[in-house]
């Protein structure tokens, strides 16, 4: 199987602080991978770098054979693409914007996703609850026919019904060969749908393992495995 994403020796500094250092990550096609780590460990930054929202890094980020940042953006669907929407328009009108500027955006899929998730197309963006906001973010992200989806903390601070609906959408709408990288600091939400996990700690990825290997070889639950990294020493985040 050819590799979808290769991140090698990635280092990123900002405001005189090291945020990521010498980070390596490989993703295969057709996977759902959990990116686990405490708040502030660098999960969002890693996704921003892969998506091309942050640019001043050292190291290699290669996505298939896509070289330029613009080519990369064409096949990565990052949940943060909704960040910056700050008006009171209806959801369907905001989706129209994405339909216009992303050639791979599928409006029909968006309508189905919104219905599945229980979002009203006539709801106004500024009036969405936290749960519905997250649902909308996921709906926009999954409405694109991308090769790599980056979902940053889609379950953060939402109720369990919304969480279940989002998990179902991920299972149902992931295109056949696409890979989804989903970050979370509370792995139990998504343990059952993960093919593999990568743990972020101390500015880097400390381990990357297949979910079934963790269960089969270590006899551990994903949660125990994840927590074992943070139990060893003090957590380094701010």
């Amino acid at each position: 199987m050819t590799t979808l994403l290769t991140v090698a020796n990635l280092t990123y500094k900002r405001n005189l602080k090291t945020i990521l250092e010498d980070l390596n990550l490989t993703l295969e096609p057709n996977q759902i991978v959990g990116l686990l780590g405490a708040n502030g460990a660098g999960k969002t930054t890693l996704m921003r770098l892969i998506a091309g929202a942050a640019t001043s890094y050292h190291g290699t980020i290669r996505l298939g054979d896509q070289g330029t940042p613009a080519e990369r953006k064409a096949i990565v669907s990052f949940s943060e693409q909704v960040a910056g929407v700050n008006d009171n328009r209806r959801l369907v009108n905001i989706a129209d914007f994405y339909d216009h500027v992303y050639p791979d955006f599928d409006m029909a899929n968006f309508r189905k996703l919104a219905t599945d998730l229980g979002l009203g197309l006539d709801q106004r963006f500024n009036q969405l609850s936290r749960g519905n906001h997250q649902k909308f973010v996921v709906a926009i992200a999954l409405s694109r026919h991308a090769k790599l989806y980056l979902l940053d903390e889609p379950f953060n601070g939402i109720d369990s019904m919304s969480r279940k609906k989002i998990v179902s959408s991920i299972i149902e709408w992931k295109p056949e060969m696409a890979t989804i990288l989903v970050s979370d600091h509370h792995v139990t939400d998504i343990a059952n749908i993960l093919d593999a996990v990568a743990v972020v700690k101390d500015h880097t990825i400390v381990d990357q393992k297949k979910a079934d290997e963790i269960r089969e070889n270590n006899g551990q639950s994903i949660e125990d495995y994840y927590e074992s990294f943070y139990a060893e020493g003090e957590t380094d985040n701010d």
Partner: protein
Amino acid sequence: MEFDDKIPIYYQIKQYIYQEIIVNHLAPGDKLPAVRQLALTLTVNVNTIQRALSELINEGILESKRGRGNFVTTDVATLTDLKHRVVEEQLALMYDRLADLQIAPEDMVAYLTDYIAKRKEQAQA
């Protein structure tokens, strides 16, 4: 369905399908739901379902018909085998536990007979 997160999910799904076949929720020749549908029903990854199904196909429990889906085998011998195997696994588990308690095989039979009688009474009461 609730999964035990310490045991590989594909393995638990296999057990689940075994059970469905043994209790005849899935009869011989029945078509299984589509892979994605199963994934949604069980809230697991499509790849996990695929792994479970392909192992079941290798075991001969399921038959994959190209373009039409997966069907429970109609081969009676395989299904009888399966039932024996699953029952045996449970018995093996019990046997090992009791053996750990240093209970002799003859006593195990006695304990089991007593226990079954007790459960019957409880059920009637």
